[in-house]
């Protein structure tokens, strides 16, 4: 593991940011302060951060309706995000996109996407740019277990293999697409009888691995290999991260489709932050005080972001018809 102390702290910071951010969004949403829908990433932190700690701002990622975590993992400003989620003029999308459409091209974040399966083809395009322009970048598609069934996902995978592109397909298997369980919706089963998303990706002609998506280190390592291969011209890979969401599909979801036991188990045994802390403490890589300091710092950041967002103006109604085109007669 080549991670420096600074990198470990940064990884923890981003995971903590995601957790705090999402818990705060959950609270603010429930208080009626956030319009629309929100899909929270809490519980899946190690997946997004384990992937993105391998990337620079020049590399590309593209995300889903559950995009807050990916943005934060890719180091987007949480203030800009919070403003956007609060529908304010100063948001990353100037209040026009909202939770499901956050993008920050300056960070290589090509956008959340409210169409399930919408983003994998777009990532193939970003990888094609990288290959054509020979700038050494890689492009990462995040998609859920549900999205993995969309035809676009398969098409994108085949295209990336055919054109040997530096694309990486991360499938975050959190067990559900809305209320429907992966054991039902993915027909392919492995030798263990479990849904075999990695096998399906391998069938498309690329290396694919399954990793524990609650374990930052496992995700990081799998991504390190995939990224090296991609940058070396070795073509695409797939990484299936097995993780679980703490909350419902959307904020407000009563989650009737999940048993009480499952929900309790998730928080007790599958918390990526707890697991990370335990690992770095055991291995004496970081001490508790450092981690606590990050916690405190992040809490302040998130709080400040909410306060900024609350105080910010909504977009002026004249913005309704701007930015449809770069230019139009």
């Amino acid at each position, binding site marked *: 593991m080549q991670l420096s102390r600074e990198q470990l702290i940064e990884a923890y910071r981003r995971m903590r940011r995601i957790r705090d951010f999402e818990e705060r969004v959950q609270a603010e949403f429930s208080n009626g302060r956030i319009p629309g829908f929100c899909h929270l990433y809490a519980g899946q932190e190690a997946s997004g951060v384990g992937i993105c700690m391998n990337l620079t701002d020049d590399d590309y990622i593209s995300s889903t309706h559950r995009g807050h975590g990916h943005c934060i993992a890719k180091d987007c400003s949480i203030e800009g995000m919070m403003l956007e989620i609060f529908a304010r003029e100063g948001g990353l999308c100037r209040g026009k996109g909202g939770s499901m459409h956050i993008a920050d091209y300056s960070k290589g974040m090509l956008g959340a996407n409210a169409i399930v*399966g919408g983003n994998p083809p777009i990532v193939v395009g970003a990888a094609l740019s990288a290959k054509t322009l020979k700038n050494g970048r890689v492009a990462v598609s995040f998609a859920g277990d549900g999205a993995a069934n969309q035809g676009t996902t398969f098409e994108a995978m085949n295209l990336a293999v055919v054109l040997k592109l530096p694309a990486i397909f991360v499938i975050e298997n959190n067990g559900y697409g809305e209320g429907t*369980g992966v054991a039902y919706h993915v027909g392919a089963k492995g030798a263990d009888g479990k849904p075999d998303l990695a096998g399906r990706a391998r069938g498309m002609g690329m290396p694919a691995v399954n990793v524990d998506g609650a374990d930052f280190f496992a995700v990081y390592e799998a991504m390190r290999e995939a990224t090296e291969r991609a940058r070396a011209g070795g073509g695409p890979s797939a990484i299936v991260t097995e993780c679980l969401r703490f909350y419902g599909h959307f904020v407000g979801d009563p989650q009737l489709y999940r048993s009480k036991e499952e929900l309790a188990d998730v928080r007790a045994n599958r918390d990526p932050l707890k697991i990370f802390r335990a690992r770095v403490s055991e291995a004496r890589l970081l001490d508790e005080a450092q981690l606590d300091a990050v916690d405190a710092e992040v809490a302040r950041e998130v709080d400040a972001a909410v306060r900024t967002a609350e105080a910010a103006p909504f977009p002026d109604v004249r913005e309704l018809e701007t930015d449809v085109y770069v230019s139009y007669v």
Partner: protein
Amino acid sequence: MPKKSYRQAINEAIAQEMRRDPTVIIMGEDVAGGFGGSGEQDAYGGVFGVTKGLLGQFGAERVIDTPITEAGFVGAAAGAAATGLRPVVELMFVDFVGVCFDQIYNQAAKFRYMFGGKVKTPMVLRSMVGAGFRGAAQHSQFLAPIFTSVPGLKVVMPSNAYDAKGLLIQAIRDDDPVIFLEHKFLYDTEADVPDEPYTIKFGEAAFTREGDDLTIVAFSRMVQMANQAADVLAKEGVSSDVIDPRTSSPLDIAAIVESVERTGRLVIVDESTPRCSLAADVAALVADRAFHALKAPIKTVTAPHTPVPFAPTLEDAYIPSAEKVEAAARAVLASSARAAAE
């Protein structure tokens, strides 16, 4: 008569038809919800609970949760319809049509014609339309014009609970593919809805207001805005026909023409973006067929030529409002008065 919500009316229509006809099935994402999970099986009943309870009544062979593969399961509905079932398939938000449009417009809609009239495809595609929920650009579109433009499809858009039940039962019994557009803003609106099954014929407009000075044609949720505007104008002595075509294909153009021949003035209200919209469609038909009766320009009130914005300040300005309808009506009235004075 019992008061029921639009949501209930739709659920009841499906349940009654499923009871009557064993070939009716429903399918879509989370129409039950909970398959393959660790908890309950009818956990969702559709994301807005419209199909809740049907699983318990009809079982998993007739209430079918699908993977997130709209092209796959909408195409399957078309294939099933052509081979003996009457599938009612749900496309959760109409915005998702882009991933399965081929199966709708090139397949289901064209089977009958391409195959020389030897096949029927009695499927219903239910889908949610409309802005106002802060759902942003990919969860708020109206898109009815795209379906309306397709020969072979029928397109239905109830504006109230009573119509929803009668039109949906008609849609399920109908032998052609029907696109049934439910406005998400209307689910909680109530109306008197009979318990018994009943049908409403396609291509028969409803008049929600009657008058002689102005014709307002409005679709889906926009009927509310039209009614409000008409009520304001009525207080000032301007009486309006408000026409809800209920189906855009077939369209009851005869009723509209008849009205315009009486009033000479037309405003059309449509939540679509303006280009090639339902509003444009109706305006064009009237500008041909009732031209000589017209006393003033035809005004349309639509969404602007923009995606649907997220921010409430913007989205509220995006949706046609009663005020905008009123303003359009006043512009038409003023223009005809000026013309008469000349």
